[in-house]
């Protein structure tokens, strides 16, 4: 009996040792596989979250998603829930999206601040040209927060050594030459549709000034409606402007003297269906300028104190400084009230 007991003990020890080794090996393998499994799903969940954010932004761009809201979707086999709320109080025109992705029996949660999906517009840039832009002289854009962006809807040819952009440089086609860019240089950017203003819409409710000249003026405006001065033919403009309003000219604008804002509250849009020509003696312009054809700068030095320039094409014969006014970017409704092409109607 004692011998059988000893044998049994030995067998039990052997079985125990073997079992321990097998369990340890299995544990290692399972641990490794679990880690790989989690890694795979974590990566996949991230892509699913990206897709959900793009879906939310496209819905916002189309105006089919009100805030705050919760969306549930199945993306690539994963169940996704997103709680979406306006985050403008922290970052203008942004959303706070809290995403939960359920997949493979695992739950992934992520919180993101993303752009409140919107289409780009020319007046979101300090300087925007629809056609090829040649820069033989210096150009400098500035704006608080590096928002002095430049957009070119064709080629950008820089032959000057003094091009400084305090923001992003976006070019639809090719860039030749170099510039100092504080933000990102983005070539091959999607083209922005060129907006053409309809005179009839500007004439409605406007104050007709006839063809001739527009001098210093204080616009009468409410918070929601800005006054419009309408000139059906050509017009010369110069002077100091107060309040908020629009100068619409059916043909060409000649800027014959400096244009200043009367105070910090002032905002004006100067819109020409055809050309804007800035005479040599002009050194300073405040306002959002739109030329349906060509913007010509004749003088050696011109500064846009607070505003932006948008034109189909540019003919710049001197140095140009544009201090971008991001009031329109911060609140697109201001762009609509200023009747800026792209925002209005």
């Amino acid at each position, binding site marked *: 009996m004692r011998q059988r007991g000893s044998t049994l003990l030995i067998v039990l020890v052997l079985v125990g*040792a073997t079992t321990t*080794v097998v369990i340890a090996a299995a544990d290692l393998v399972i641990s490794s596989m679990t880690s790989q499994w989690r890694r795979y799903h974590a990566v996949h969940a991230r892509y699913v979250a990206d897709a959900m954010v793009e879906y939310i932004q496209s819905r916002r761009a189309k105006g089919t998603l009100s805030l705050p809201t919760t969306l549930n979707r199945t993306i690539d086999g994963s169940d996704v829930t997103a709680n979406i709320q306006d985050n403008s109080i922290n970052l203008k025109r942004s959303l706070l999206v809290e995403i939960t992705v359920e997949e493979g029996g695992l739950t992934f949660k992520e919180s993101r601040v993303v*752009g*409140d999906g919107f289409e780009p517009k020319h007046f979101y840039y300090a300087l925007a040209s629809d056609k090829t832009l040649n820069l033989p002289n210096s150009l400098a854009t500035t704006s608080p*927060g590096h*928002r002095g962006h430049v957009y070119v809807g064709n080629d950008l040819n820089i032959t000057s050594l003094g091009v400084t952009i305090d923001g*992003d440089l976006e070019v639809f086609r090719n860039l030749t030459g170099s510039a100092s860019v504080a933000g*990102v240089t983005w070539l091959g950017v999607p083209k922005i549709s060129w907006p053409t203003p309809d005179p009839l819409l500007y004439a409605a409710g406007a104050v007709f000034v006839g063809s001739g000249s527009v001098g210093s003026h204080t616009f009468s405006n409410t918070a929601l409606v800005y006054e419009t001065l309408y000139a059906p033919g050509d017009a010369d403009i110069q002077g100091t402007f107060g309040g908020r309003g629009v100068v619409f000219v059916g043909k060409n604008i000649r800027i014959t003297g400096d244009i200043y804002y009367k105070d910090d509250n002032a905002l004006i849009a100067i819109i020409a269906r055809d050309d804007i020509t800035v005479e040599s003696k002009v050194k300073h312009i405040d306002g959002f300028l739109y030329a349906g054809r060509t913007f010509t700068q004749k003088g050696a030095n011109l500064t846009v104190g607070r505003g932006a320039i948008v034109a189909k094409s540019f003919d710049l014969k001197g140095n140009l400084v544009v201090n971008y006014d991001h009031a329109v970017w911060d609140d697109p409704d201001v762009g609509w009230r200023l009747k800026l092409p792209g925002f209005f109607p």
Partner: protein
Amino acid sequence: MGRRAFTVVELLIAVSLTAIIAGTLVSVYVFVSTRAAHGVAEQNVLDQVRDLTRDVSKTIENSVRCETVNVSGQWALKCVMPAQPTSTDARNVANAFAPTDLSARGIERWGEGQRVWFYQADETGKLGRAGLYVWRAVRSDDAIPTDADADRAWSFYYGGVRYRWSLINSISFSVTPSERLATVTVKGSVLAGDSEERGKLVGADELDKARTYSLTMSRAAYWLRWRR
């Protein structure tokens, strides 16, 4: 009837069986313990290589941009992180960020915050001194990190004396700025039975059983928050 003693034959059989069983047990024990040690060693080198690769590639993914920098012949990876961190991991390293602004097209812009460096140096952590220790250093400007900037809590457990990357032989980097892509390659190895301590030699009688396990892992990561 008196009690009969064992015969010589019975004793020999009993001794032989006991010897066979004992021999088998010892062989099984040696085999199992050796394999277990080898398995643990392999797993340890895998863990360290994978953890280091993951730490670096996550930093790359979170960054605004990365570049390689040569300091006194030693190559380092420098990544610029976003300006606005929103949470940190267990080692107090930022792992989530919020954008500082949006572009004209509504794409997030991240600004520029801390500079995170990865490199190999000696035990002082000073970049530019040749050594096998893997270091991470953090600065708030573009200057070359000093030994005071080295994150000791990342390289040593609890910032103490036990080195965390004891099985790592080398770490190297390559960067393709035009693609916003950085690749980290980590090489690790271990002599089975010597899985814990750097430089510890196995005994001469163990050498015939010893085996080196080597592992090289490369991971390419894109920096995703490139709009500064």
